[in-house]
């Protein structure tokens, strides 16, 4: 404790005030407790605030034996000023699906990380991992040893491999869930451990699983393969509860609008008219839904959860290809399989995964995301030639407007070889 060095950090200090939890206070408190690297981290942040530039070097390749991912190497570019963070690598730890923990786990993990690293974390990373921020190269193997032996835990993904799958809380808490999101997430993670740990792909690949089209894990925006729950039978209606909403006994949208006076609930204005397909009507006192026209957008269910529930014949819609903007611009996932049952052991789904990955590993260029490959080689090619599936109108927002489809030679009677002589016999040049 004696040689603790607190840096002068006026800008960091400014970030202590205000109601939102201050990471500065948290780091500083830990620094005060004798952890120099937290002081150094704040010191280097302050320097970045002065220079308006990061003070981390371009990442170095570090990791644990036999794995190709899970660790992000990081070195300070001002190590003399901030020696305790000269090495400051992060470990990505594969979180339990939907991120429930108990205090036993948290405490033991804290004990471990205080011992092996900085005690600084991200709960959680954007992909879903538990992130342990800041340790030195020689602590990596021991940390991994601790994790695997003292926790039965494992690293998550980084590099050109499968990234840690993630899911919404699903049936654990949510009445909307059409999928056993955690079970799927866990099964995929376990099944594809090799792909997760040993880079064999052209680039990163992400699975995310949401229990319903509200998509609380942002699967459609952030995963190469988005698994989103849906149903194919009818929305279940409790007409009495519908009346309770109309009568004002139940609060619309479960009270999500409680701090503003939006006036009395108006089922026509708030539900029926906002249904994107207009497939609902009030027939006297009865709410009727033409389920064949419903696109399962969740709106009516969200507004009246006590009255409406998704159907019971559930499965998933599979979409592919979301990614961040680099290189060609951001993509959202595109509908590929309108409906697939997701029942253990998910064989149908895993067969699909094989086709997907085989193609990408065969054809994908270095650092080409799966969604970019679909764009480069064509959505129809992927659906038909790679997946062996039938093209359906649901595959497109709207049909193409350019008249430029490709035709294959075998599709055209007579093929492409033609006799020039015959042609010129009919047509003088």
């Amino acid at each position: 404790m004696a040689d603790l060095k607190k840096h002068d950090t006026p800008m960091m200090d400014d970030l202590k005030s205000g109601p939102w939890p201050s990471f500065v206070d948290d780091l500083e408190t830990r620094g005060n407790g004798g952890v120099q690297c937290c002081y150094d981290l704040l010191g280097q942040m302050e320097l970045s605030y002065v220079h308006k530039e990061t003070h981390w070097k371009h990442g170095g390749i570090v990791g644990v034996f036999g794995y190709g991912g899970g660790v992000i190497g990081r070195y300070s570019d001002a190590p003399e000023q901030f020696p305790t963070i000269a090495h400051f690598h992060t470990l990505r730890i594969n979180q339990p699906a939907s991120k429930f923990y108990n205090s036993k786990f948290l405490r033991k993990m804290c004990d471990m990380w205080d011992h092996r690293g900085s005690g600084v974390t991200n709960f959680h990373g954007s992909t879903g991992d538990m992130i342990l921020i800041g340790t030195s190269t020689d602590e990596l193997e021991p940390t991994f040893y601790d994790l695997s032996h003292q926790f039965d835990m494992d690293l998550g993904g980084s590099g050109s491999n499968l990234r840690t799958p993630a899911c919404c809380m699903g049936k654990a808490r949510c009445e909307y869930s059409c999928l056993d999101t955690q079970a799927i997430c866990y099964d995929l993670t376990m099944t594809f451990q090799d792909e997760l740990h040993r880079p064999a792909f052209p680039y990163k690949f992400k699975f995310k699983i949401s229990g319903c089209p509200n998509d609380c894990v942002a699967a459609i925006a952030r995963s190469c393969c988005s698994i989103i729950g849906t149903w194919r039978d009818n929305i279940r209606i409790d007409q009495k509860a519908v009346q309770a909403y109309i009568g004002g006994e139940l609060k619309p949208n479960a009270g999500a609008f409680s701090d503003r006076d939006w006036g009395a609930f108006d089922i026509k204005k708030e539900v029926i008219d906002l249904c994107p397909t207009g497939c609902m009507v009030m027939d006297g006192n009865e709410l009727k839904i033409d389920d064949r026209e419903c696109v399962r957008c969740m709106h009516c269910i969200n507004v009246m959860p006590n009255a409406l529930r998704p159907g019971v014949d559930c499965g998933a819609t599979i979409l592919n290809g979301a990614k961040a903007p680099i290189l060609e611009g951001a993509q959202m996932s595109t509908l590929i399989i309108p409906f697939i049952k997701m029942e253990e052991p998910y064989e149908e789904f895993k067969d699909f995964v094989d086709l997907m990955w085989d193609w990408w590993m065969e054809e994908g260029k270095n650092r080409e995301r799966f969604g970019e490959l679909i764009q480069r080689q064509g959505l129809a090619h992927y659906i038909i030639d790679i997946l062996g599936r039938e093209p359906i109108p649901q595959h497109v927002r709207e049909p193409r407007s350019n008249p430029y489809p490709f035709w294959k030679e075998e599709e055209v009677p007579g093929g492409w070889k033609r006799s020039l002589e015959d042609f010129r016999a009919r047509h003088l040049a």
Partner: protein
Amino acid sequence: MIDTSRYKDDPGYNIQAKLDIPYDPTLADREYNPEKPMAGRLTDQGPPHYEQFFPEVIKKNYGKWLTHEFLQSGVIKYTSETGDLMWVVRCGTPRLITTNLLREIGDISDKFCEGICRWTTRNSVEFHVTDEGTLKDLIEFLNNFKHPGGSYKLPIGGTGAGITNIVHTQGWIHCHTPATDASGMVKSVMDDMFEYWNSHKLPAKLRISMACCLNMCGAVHCSDIALLGIHRKPPFVEDDRITGVCEIPLAIAACPTAAIKPAKVTLPDGKEVKTVRVNEPRCMFCGNCYTMCPAMPLADEEGDGVAILAGGKISNRITQPTFSKLIVPYIPNELPRFESVCKIVRNIVEAYEKGANKYERLGDWAARVGWERFFEQCQLPFTEKSIDDYRLAYDTYHTTTQFKWSSHTDKLMKEAGY
């Protein structure tokens, strides 16, 4: 009750037993031998099985929940088919937290919630209780749970028609490519937006996301409001070390606009080296070259800053998922409080609060009233940077005579003397 018999042989299923054993700080030092890394090695065990962390009430009611209700922002009551009730309290966190706070979260879980808590997909912490008395105590506890500087350690809120926790990235706390800081900006914006964090007064959910460079680890591309670190100076090229640290063909291939060409130069010391040159007017500052090549840094005090995008969404509710759109091309990094970012976010949120219909997401509002009106009502200048000139640009061209008169056309017509 969920059937997890199928997992009982999975290594991750029995972590509880391990957790009962205190952490042994010397185990690895004793057992792990760098010379023989494979000895006793355990790999590919995967994550622990989720089920063992569920509270009892969730184990019992898994898949049986009937409905939920928000009692106030951050407090949700769940009802099960079995008649069981459960209350959840959601708390904001800065995500960047130390083991100090983690231990305290463990303590709170022990005190109120059978030791269990969870994190949401947007980095809030949630506590589950099964009786109203405990709920009351928990809420009271959290309301008084503060940092020395006065900020809440775990502020309650983030549900319903309000602003949730900001999904964000590393920034200057840990990454090598950021054009701005993440944690500080999030703190500044959330301080300012706190009234929306713990209330249900907006027309719909409003999601703010933040990413510190175009890699967009926060996946901000589908957010109601996206704060994005951007560079504005092309990389410079360190001729004297590029050959050592980069694979030049990869750097060249990394450039989306083909602005990087191979080159040969003679260094001051007379050595001829292979390097690259950047056709600077073609560079759009994506930083992908730097990702591939440490000798091409972009970061620059004057060049870097923040862009704001808006109007994206993810859910399929009513309208389809949509990309966020670039509405403010650049704000300098104003440290430590990012005043202009906060101000613009506030303008947008207030205009949205005032203008949108109930259930209408920000982007749907903008599309309904027209983007001309959006810019006007948010008091944002429109700049040419919002006009697309990338790959799919044509699809954003305005190929109709339908438009609204706005301050913009008023100005033009006045200038034209009409």
